[in-house]
């Protein structure tokens, strides 16, 4: 896939929709195109983050490992998903492990470049906030659901 095609792809993603094409081209050119094979991980929970990934093609599992070592798949991601940005935004270790479930094609965007773009394009920051808020909402929903089921189980057990 050539640079111009990647630029088209980036433009179709809401996060980058408002960025001017020449910047997207720079983003594409300076980002590494990285292919993962089924079973390979983009990164592991606890690693320090140095890049975010844009999924170009394929699917992957987002897995969180609990303190007891139990593994929980919290989401499945596919084409156009943007992952790994939390670790580079907040300078915290990776919060989850992402493992390819098919052959996965990604664009790896380094931390420096990402920050540069966020600084230059406030709309991108807004998009990121929007996305984070959406994930928060989803988590809340899941939490409520989990609480409800917990209560049901407790009620059934008692």
């Amino acid at each position, binding site marked *: 896939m*050539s640079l111009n095609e990647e630029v088209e792809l980036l433009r179709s993603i809401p996060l980058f929709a408002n960025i001017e094409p020449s910047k997207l081209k720079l983003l594409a*050119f*300076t980002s590494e195109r990285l292919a993962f094979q089924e079973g390979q991980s983009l990164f592991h929970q606890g690693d320090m983050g140095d890049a975010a990934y844009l999924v170009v093609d394929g699917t992957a599992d987002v897995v969180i490992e609990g303190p007891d070592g139990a593994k929980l798949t919290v989401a499945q991601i596919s084409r156009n998903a943007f992952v790994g940005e939390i670790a580079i935004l907040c300078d915290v270790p990776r919060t989850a492990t992402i493992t390819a479930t098919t052959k996965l094609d990604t664009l790896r965007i380094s931390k*420096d*470049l990402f920050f540069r773009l966020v600084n230059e394009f406030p709309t991108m920051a807004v998009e990121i906030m929007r996305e984070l808020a959406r994930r928060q909402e989803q988590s809340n929903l899941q939490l409520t659901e989990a609480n409800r089921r917990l209560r049901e189980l407790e009620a059934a057990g008692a």
Partner: protein
Amino acid sequence: MEKTIFGYVWRFSRQQQINMTLLSAASLPFLYLFYEVPKTIINEAIQGIHVQYPLNLAEKLTVSLFGVDIPLLGPFDLVVNQTPYLYILCGVFLVLVGINQGFKFVINVYKGLTGERMLRRLRFELYARVLRFPLPTFRKMSQGEIIPMITAEVEPLGGFIGDAFSLPAFQGGYLATILAFLFLQDWRMAAAAVSLYPLQLWLIPKLQRRVNLLGKERVARVRRLSDKIGETVQGVQETHANDTSNFVLMDFSNQLFWIYGVRERIYRQKFVIKFLNNSIQQLGPFAFYSIGGYFVITGDLEIGTLVAAIAAHKDLAAPWKELLAYYQMQADATIKYDQVVSQFGPAGMRGPDYQMVEPDEPGPLTGELTAANLTLNDDQEAPVVDGVSMRLPLDKRYAIVGSGGSGKDELTLLLARLLDPDNGNISLGGGDAALLPETVTGRRMAHVGAAAFVFAGTIANNLFLGLKHRPLRSAEYTGAAAKHRALYVSEARRSGNIDFDPDADWIDYAAAGVEDADALRQAGLAVLAQCGMGEEVYQFGLRGTIDPQARPDLAAAILRARAGLRQHMAADPALLVLVEGFDADAYNLNASVGENLMFGNPVGDVFDVEHLAEHPYVLDVLAQVGLTEQFLSVGYQVASTMVELFADLPPDHELFQQFSFISADDLPDIQSLLQRSDRANLAALPDEDRGRLMSLPFKIIPARHRLGLVDDDLQGKVLEARRYFAANLPDELRSAVEFFDVTEYNAAANIQDNILFGKVAYGQAQAVDRVGALISEVIMELDLHEVVAEVGLNFEVGIAGSRLSTAQRQKLALARALMKRPDILILSEPTASLDSATQAGIMAALLAEYEGRCLIWSVQRASMAAGFDEILVMRQGRLMERGSYADLSQNNECVRELLASE
């Protein structure tokens, strides 16, 4: 060393000085004749005064000595007229010119060689003394001071030494000869000519003394200057870290100012002396014209004599000047010699025998190492090691524990005989260790400190350094090489240098417990592995190169690994995508266009990748396959893309360095180039612009840059160009490129690339790591690990080991000490710069190795002493306690404090 330079010269070049003086003396009669003949030519042959023609030469050339007539021509009679007589005399004059110049030539060469040999001797002596200085000397004397003393400061001494005796003898004799000639002509005139010499002899030394003092000051200041430069180089990191360049520059400028001031005064004084000399010299002719002229008028003097006298006086000026210059040079040399020699005899310097005398077979050290009342003071006379007495049987492993200033480091230096105690003594197996020469302590003992030094050269050079004490197996020489070697030896002996052969085999294999060089390399690798450096050396080996001609076995093994890697990849499709192998008939998308075209590695810089577009042959190849226009067009597109992407980035942005095809400096030029060029008619651009555009496509790596510019058509043509490039390469360029050939070892590539024989694919996650692991796997399977590591031994460590990390330098130093299998291994925090896991590994290995042998280890943390047979507790220079770790860690206050503070 001799107190004065004359003493030194006389001691070491007496014979040469005498020879030169004799030669000078032998030349004087000819010199006299050289002045006599012109007089005879003018008076007798031209003017015919006092002679009757025809002249009987036999009669004239008969010298009367003690009443006996000696005919110089023998029994022959030679009667000549005036004109032939003139020619004969002119012929004699010509012969004398030859003889005099011949003498000069021989004397000068002899003098030069004598001076150079003496200079070599002096330098060698000074350098050898540096090696015998007691270590504390180097706290006061920096390398910045020592270097100019041995190099620049003694240099003029060489010139002076050649002249020391012969110049005053020769020039003095020369002067005396001319004076004698002048006095024989007319004593009044001669007296007048030299009447002012006494004034000069009185005045000049007075002035010279002041110049001498200034000279002394200048030498001292220049020495300080070089010391400063040395310090700047060593501390350059701190200068940058603290932004003190201006402060450093100020200091330097200040020093230069003072040096200038001294030089200025020297110049003034020197030229005053010169002025006086020349003025006084010119008084001679004044005497000739006035007094001599008067006598010619009165008829007391012949005009020919006056002319000859004037000529002789003119020649008088030369030796007189030489003598005065000699006087100045002598004064200068004396100062330099004094100043240098006074620096090279510090108190406590060891004698030459200490290093030079080869001991009788130094057997293993046995028995006990005993210290009695061992005391060492620092510069302020405060005790650093204070009255330490102990007996250490040589079959145990000792740990020395203590805080930083407890004197434990100094104690190890004393025990290793690197420092001399101020008081007390050390004995070894009964004998006094102070009497043991370095030839024994340096071979049977080893000491490694916390800041070990690594010398420039390869890892192997450093690793085996401790085995090189003496040339053990001389090299074989035949023919011209043998002659050269004989010359080397004779010259070394003439200058008092050692004549050891640099090409001999110096390695003491027996000391390392091996038979030959192969076994030594194996042993070296084993020791490096023990010191935790095995993997690093293996990695150096992977990135190292070999000469396949010299090591065909190695090259063949690497080719087997290449095939092995291919098999692995063929068997597993997941691996196949990681590497794009070189294939003569296929375009490699992970290699640059330039590499695809050449299909080989450049050797030297003829086909340097950066400048491929400038090479006429490459341009010719492009033209031949019709690629020129296409390259221009692709170059144009690359340039416009780069301008589009990078134009509004700040020039120092890191993306430029990482990604741009065009540097930030060149970008504006390219921008204007694009503006003024017509895309449809790029061929019309001037050569320089075309060159710029042409250079861009060579750098494209399609898989990495994804610019979409290298299409199938272009790939096909590049393949065509590849074939043309190889087929028509001129003979003289054949050595500038090493083609990729799957059946041949590529001497221009490193081992890893040779095994890979292709490019690691871009865009595959963790490709580099996975390929690296795969290569290691193949190397293991084929049992090549050791072979590769051996290549790693040839890794160049850089100046003072700067290409190694601190930890690597430390490991190498430790390995160097282990290599000679010392009877006593003394270590002072040798692993301080390593991580604790590596530290523990090395310590375990050494404790195992030295079970039942003598290991003395000053540890940086008390807890590290747990595995030792016995621990010695140091505090404030005193040995407080010794005993087992189990006991002392419970019951000794000092040890408990130390453990608690960790």
